[in-house]
């Protein structure tokens, strides 16, 4: 024992950073996070009708979903809703973020901040039934049922999600470049477009993507606000679960998962860029 070369990293033998059993539990947990999703994806490629017995590889459920008019309508509606809501929310959130960062305390700053984050503080089901009450009243009074209700509701709860990354981005910058531009008599709009915007665009893109994902995923508020025939992909799937579930639901789920995973990876990549 004493003749052997001493270990180069004595800490490796006895590390205060390792705790017995923790690594096993951790690896088990991470595996468990992915296993149900992977099983769901696997069965979307099952050629049989069953969700239990594997009968061979096939894309038939993807074809069936792609030919299902209800699914296509819901998908288009979801995309339209998420793009509109995330778009408006991002513009409003960018303006609010510009107003509430890089400044001393001004009267009402805390109030603006609290208001913007308000949708995050209230359980979604509570916001959903409150919107149901108000919108039911407006719908009866005006007889007007269009996507505008869904767009309004989604925009409101998307704003805090769009706001956070933009604010985070702005807080890493200081005012010097903008002050310099103003000192050189650049008009405010030009300062924003030529100096501020190029610096904060990763935050804006990240915020918009986050808002888009949040809107696409929403079930609860959509379920309570939508009028007849306004199913989005999540509410369509929720409705399907009441019937006999075929791997078609898995196929739709897989497409959502894939799209979501790509967006989230992009989001991480963009928010990493700032370092």
């Amino acid at each position: 024992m004493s003749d052997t070369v001493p270990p180069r990293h004595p800490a490796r033998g006895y590390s205060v950073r390792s705790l017995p059993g923790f690594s096993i539990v951790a690896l088990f947990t991470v595996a468990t996070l992915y296993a149900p999703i992977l099983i769901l994806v696997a069965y979307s490629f099952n050629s049989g009708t069953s969700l239990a017995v594997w009968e061979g590889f096939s894309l038939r459920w993807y074809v069936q979903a792609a030919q299902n008019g209800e699914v296509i309508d819901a998908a288009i509606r979801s995309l339209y809703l998420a793009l509109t809501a995330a778009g408006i929310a991002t513009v409003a959130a960018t303006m609010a973020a510009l107003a509430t960062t890089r400044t001393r305390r001004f009267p009402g700053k805390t109030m603006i901040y609290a208001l913007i984050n308000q949708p995050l503080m209230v359980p979604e089901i509570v916001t959903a039934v409150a919107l149901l009450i108000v919108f039911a009243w407006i719908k009866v009074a005006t007889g007007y049922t269009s996507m505008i209700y869904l767009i309004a509701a989604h925009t409101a709860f998307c704003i805090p999600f769009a706001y956070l990354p933009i604010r985070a981005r702005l807080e890493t910058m200081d005012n010097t470049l903008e002050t310099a531009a103003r000192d050189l008599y650049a008009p405010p709009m030009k300062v924003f477009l030529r100096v501020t915007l190029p610096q904060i665009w990763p935050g804006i893109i990240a915020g918009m993507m986050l808002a888009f994902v949040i809107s696409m995923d929403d079930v609860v508020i959509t379920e309570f606000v939508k009028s007849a025939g306004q199913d989005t992909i999540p509410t369509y799937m929720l409705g399907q679960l009441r019937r006999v579930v075929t791997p078609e639901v898995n196929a739709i789920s897989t497409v959502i998962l894939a799209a979501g995973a790509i967006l989230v990876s992009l989001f991480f990549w963009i928010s990493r860029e700032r370092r």
Partner: protein
Amino acid sequence: MAQAPDTPLAPGALEHELEQADSRSRWLLSLPAIVIITLFATAPLLVMVLYSFLTPGDYGNVIWKFSTEGWTNVLMQRDIFDDTLIWADAHLSIFWRSVKLSLITTLLTLIFGLPTAWFVATRPKGQRELWLFLVTVPFWTNLLVRTIAIQELIRAEGVINNVLIFLHIIDEPIQMMFTDFAIGFGMTYVYLPLMVLPVYAAVEKLDFRLVEAAHDLYASRWTAFRRIILPMIKPGIIAGSILVFIPCLGAYVTPRVLGGGKNLMFGNLIELQFGAGRNWPLGAALSFTLMAIVMVALVYYVRLTSREEKTDV
């Protein structure tokens, strides 16, 4: 901030004016966000306060007549025979299930989340971000899809039952769907990342020299964990627990899909009043009851995290 020009005019007054103009323009810039959120998130809550004090209509909606029945019905109900107020047992059992399942879920996410957070935080710097990414990605994927994944796992003909039957551990499939177990299992799965992230942040900040010192003083691993590590990561654990507990209490999708029509939680009870129950004032009152509990937890959380930020400096 613009500099006050060096004129002989009272400089204090000018600065004050500039500051006011600055505040005004900042309010103006925030206006679209404020208006949208006020109209479509805050104001509906205020309207709902009003609705909680009205009389339920026969076919849903309300009759415009003042009544406190909505609020008393949260906990009490009128006996159908002699019209006396008695405890609403159905509601109480649903509240109890909500709190019980939320607490169990919080505990389970801690049991699995703490080692996971520890593991991720003690990886070499280069790997850490990848592990963190792996833990976070499922959280950002669709909640309904993840719930469906759990449903397919625990259904009567699901993967778990099939494997157990294949291994001859059981003969008949175990009924796991539409039970409290299903809801607890699903919520643990869905909200686990909310526990991992704050605990991870706490472990990452941990000063390991203190742990080394404990070991130098002949503390066993268990003693060092209990006396040194645990007290230092406690704020992270409390934060994670609140972050898990809050969405559990207000959960709607997971109990609806996995719990079915019988095992209701708070969120489903609220929905019921706006659907088959046709008691909008009660639904409104229940919503504020839920919101009040969540607010208490949130205020506690905010106070905790702001205190932590102060000690960081």
